């Protein structure tokens, strides 16, 4: 089966379409590892960014004090600066202030690697957008729901936790899908700090084999597929939580 695949790729090459990732073992290996890194980035950053978004929106929904100001400052700072600049800032500026260990030959080695910095930068970036997404969802829930919950004896926190937030979440899905699709595509920026994700490995491959045209098309197709999967999963979650009258159904 694999041999058949290889033969097909070599025939394609003869006809002018040079997909080295299908017949060159080394290129195949690095491409697959790049794809895996991209998927890991998407999954981890989605998880942390939703966590950050939920925490931020909760703070904004429940308090007006210094904690809320802190969240607002975070959103303003992250949302108003380019992701690439943040990535460089975390990796080269903040990274140089972090503790260093030592490797076997006695050279200093930073404790936090480039992949971790990419996860931190991307999560904070998408997290800032998610804060606003969840806040707008919560804002769309009519005040009477909270009042009704309070009248039934709920505390403010419990009313938020059990009534307002679940309803607000349903208003947030469309915008959340936007943010997560954007995050999926934004993982390519990790390339700037040498994280071996899809764009990075593709760049290496087309630099060696000069099959830029083919690799660009492969990249387009793969990102289309990845964002498609993200949208599909969010769609599934949305349908599972469907509640007529709340959010777009």
């Amino acid at each position, binding site marked *: 089966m694999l041999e058949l695949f290889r033969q097909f790729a070599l025939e394609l090459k003869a006809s002018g379409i040079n997909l080295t990732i299908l017949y060159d073992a*080394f290129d195949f290996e690095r491409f697959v590892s790049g794809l895996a890194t991209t998927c890991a980035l998407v999954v981890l950053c989605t998880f942390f960014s939703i966590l950050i978004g939920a925490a931020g929106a909760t703070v904004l929904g429940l308090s007006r004090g210094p904690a809320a100001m802190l969240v607002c400052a975070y959103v303003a700072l992250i949302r108003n600066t380019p992701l690439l600049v943040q990535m460089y800032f975390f990796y*080269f500026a903040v990274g140089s202030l972090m503790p*260093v260990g030592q*490797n076997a030959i006695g050279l200093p080695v930073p404790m936090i690697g480039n992949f971790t910095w990419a996860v931190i930068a991307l999560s904070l970036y998408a997290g800032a957008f998610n804060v606003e997404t969840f806040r707008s969802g919560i804002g769309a829930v009519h005040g009477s729901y909270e009042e009704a919950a309070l009248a039934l004896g709920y505390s403010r926190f419990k009313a938020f936790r059990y009534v307002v937030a679940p309803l607000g979440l349903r208003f947030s899905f469309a915008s959340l899908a936007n943010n997560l699709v954007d995050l999926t595509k934004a993982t390519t920026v990790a390339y700037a700090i*040498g994280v071996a994700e899809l764009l*990075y490995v593709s*760049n*290496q491959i087309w630099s060696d084999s*000069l099959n830029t045209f083919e690799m660009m098309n492969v990249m387009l197709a793969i990102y289309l597929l990845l964002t498609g999967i993200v949208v599909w999963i969010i769609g599934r979650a949305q349908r599972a939580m469907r509640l007529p009258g709340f959010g777009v159904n």
Partner: protein
Amino acid sequence: MKALKTFAFGLALGLGAAVARAETLDCGDDTLCKIEATKVLKVGTKDDYKPWSYRAADGSFAGMEVDLANALGQLLGAKVEIVKVNSANRFEFLAQGQIDIMIASATDTAERRQVVGFVHPNYYSSGYNILLPKKVKATKWDEMTGQTICAIQGAWYNKPAQEKFKLELLAFAGTAEVESALQQGRCIGVLSDDNLINVQLADPKWADYYMPLPTQDDAPWGIAVRKADLDKPWGVLVAGAIANWHRSGKLLELEKANGIAESAYLRKMHEALKDHLATQ
């Protein structure tokens, strides 16, 4: 509104002029004819490969390759326009016509010859090696297996070094990022051109570094034109110019003037092509 109209008019005028100009240059695919008609030679060069091509303190381009570009411009009586390229985009820039010629320390390889036309003779030669801190006591490449080494995205030796010696490469877009990463200990050394490492080592900034491993895969660099131009007047003219530079010793002179140690390749080429009647 008036400003907008003026702008639109200006734009239309500019476009019209451009079309008219293109029509008067009935050169077809002949790049040499186009250069002679426009009196502009667009050369693709890097800006971070000191001393071959870099930006001088005043922002202008300088280096051995820029000197070669200027020599070509002088030969053609054309104004030299330097276009900044990098390792990862230089072949596309040439193939798509953004530049007429590429002098960007590109090693002449079989894969690359399928995309652009390398003009012969070659004008320089180098292999790859690793710049290491003196703390690292290594004499064989095998000792580098599994180590994280910084590199430049798009360099031809990234793949063989990974395949042959199983290095873990951490590649960045430019030399500035590579140097920061090295200083912060993100990699133990830098995979690079052996000539470039020699030049770096001459600088006191790199006093704590050395190049203990034997250089690998010494291969010649080529000046490239578009494939269609290779056997046409443009390619042949450039080939003749390079041969003359070898014969006259201009390449050796430029190498020296730019502070690079004499390379065996240039000496060999000069000996082979030099004027047999010239008095010693």
